[in-house]
């Protein structure tokens, strides 16, 4: 048994033993669980992929004369300004003003909120256009100016839902090509798309939320971020394998971090044809090896993690609940699965390559003593389901 304090002391003195969630598998095989649990202090997990429920709060500081911005556009992308005078919230999936969306199907969605966020983190110049009705204390009614992230007082990423514990594998059983947030799906199940780092993914290595909770320090695109709440749609009560690993979506994390500290390599705007804009983020989560049980859970392998195969032409949009089958990440990562006697080409929407790079970087930061762990302030809920939206005929 180890405590957070003991592990942090070892990190501070550069003595912590840290391995990635990929390396730990063979390590425990070689050393045995008992010995490995004594030796290893931290296992690093990571993921990189589109996380739509993301965005950022920006504070511009005050112009002269002052302005209470009531409508704002950043590079022509509307930002929410229904908060204080010079604060805005920019959502990742917000489309640029005048984007034709799917009027010319499939829309290309080349630029949106996520691309503005990418530009900001990359240090590029962004245009602010703002309008106001004018008040006695904030008389200015219009502003157009250019800024970089360095000109802002704060640029804080606040993401209500990141790091889905597990995710659907999408296929298309219809006779026409469809465009989804899991990419282009060819008819007659000619291809399938998944979106998870599998054995490297944070919540698949801590399936019962024994270490990850509210307050956990995470590596958010290179910045030291935190879990600030359970993620929206956090639904831990779900179908699980005997190893405790969910066989469907399940848990999620709400993350926050300082955009000024982020690395542009891990903050990327995503254009999904026919669907919209999203933001790809790199997230690393350190798992403290407090005991053998926690270590054992980090040794989960791709072959022991399964995801549900869902038809996105009918069952997903119509919410029928039908699952075509279960498929392991080991099978998905071969690039081909067999289903119903047919061969389906498989590709991903998340990047295992980038997830590996993040797990390595976080490992190095912890080994160097640059990244300390934070004990959670509160656990994530362990029993909770997701509600649907009822359409009522009358007010309640």
């Amino acid at each position, binding site marked *: 048994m180890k405590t957070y304090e003991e592990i942090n002391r070892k990190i501070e003195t550069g003595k912590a033993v840290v391995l990635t969630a990929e390396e730990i598998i063979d390590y425990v095989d070689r050393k045995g669980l008992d010995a490995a649990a004594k030796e290893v202090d931290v296992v690093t997990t990571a993921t*990189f*992929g*589109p996380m739509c429920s993301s965005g950022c709060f920006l504070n511009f500081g005050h112009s002269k004369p002052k302005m209470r911005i009531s409508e704002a556009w950043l590079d022509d992308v509307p930002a929410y300004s229904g908060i204080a005078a010079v604060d805005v919230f920019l959502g990742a999936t917000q489309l640029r003003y005048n984007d034709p969306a799917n009027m010319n199907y499939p829309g290309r969605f*080349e630029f949106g909120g996520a691309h503005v966020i990418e530009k900001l983190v990359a240090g590029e110049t962004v245009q602010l256009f703002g309008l106001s009705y004018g008040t006695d204390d904030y008389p200015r009614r219009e502003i157009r100016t250019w800024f970089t992230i360095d000109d802002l007082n704060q640029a804080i990423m606040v993401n209500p839902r990141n790091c889905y514990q597990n995710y659907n594998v999408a296929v298309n059983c219809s006779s026409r090509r469809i465009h989804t947030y899991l*990419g*282009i799906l*060819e008819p007659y199940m000619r*291809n*399938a*798309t998944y979106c998870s780092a599998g054995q490297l993914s944070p919540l698949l290595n801590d399936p019962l939320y024994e270490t990850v909770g509210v307050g956990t320090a995470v590596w958010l695109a290179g910045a030291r971020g935190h879990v600030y709440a359970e993620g929206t749609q956090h639904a831990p009560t779900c179908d699980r394998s005997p190893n405790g690993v969910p066989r469907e979506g399940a848990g999620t994390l709400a993350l926050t971090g300082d955009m000024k500290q982020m690395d542009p390599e891990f903050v*990327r*705007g*995503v*254009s*999904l*044809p026919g669907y919209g804009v*999203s933001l*790809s983020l790199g997230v690393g989560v350190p798992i403290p090896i407090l005991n053998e049980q926690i270590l054992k859970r980090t040794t989960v392998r791709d072959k022991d993690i399964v995801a549900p195969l869902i038809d996105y032409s009918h069952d997903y949009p119509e919410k029928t609940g039908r699952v075509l089958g279960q498929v392991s990440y080991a099978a998905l*990562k*071969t*690039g081909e699965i067999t289903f119903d006697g047919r061969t389906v*080409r*498989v*590709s*991903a*929407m*998340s*990047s*295992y*390559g*980038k997830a*590996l790079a993040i797990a390595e970087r976080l490992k190095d930061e912890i080994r160097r003593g640059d990244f300390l762990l934070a004990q959670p302030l509160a656990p994530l809920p362990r029993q909770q389901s997701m509600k649907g939206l009822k359409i009522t005929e009358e007010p309640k």
Partner: protein
Amino acid sequence: MITRKLFFRFPKSEIEKPIVYHLVKDYDLIINIFRARVTDNKEGYMVLDVTGEEESIERGVEFVRAFGVAIDPINKGVRWIEDRCTHCTNCIAHCPTNALHIDDRKTMRVTFTEELCVECLNCLSNCPYGACTSAF
């Protein structure tokens, strides 16, 4: 016999000349055109495989160059910009010839073998990060 993939860029004045006909008849070359286009401002582009004796290909290329056609051996029709690629691998299932592929499924990184590309442009409309682009 060897095969070489070539990218022709035609100047405004030469788009009406039957260059491919001459490559076949006069230089005994087997031509496989992947993609060709005349643009609004009357420039032309063509991406093609040329198969034949090495010397015939050299002579054919010289013949084409004499018309002022630019033959770029490096920049081809479809380009994969590695810096923009996040290795999400989404393109892999949409590439009919495995020009975009994964060499090592342990690290899951994407690579592009230009010679295998048949310029179908699936990757252009598919890539969520704009990592695949076309010269025309």
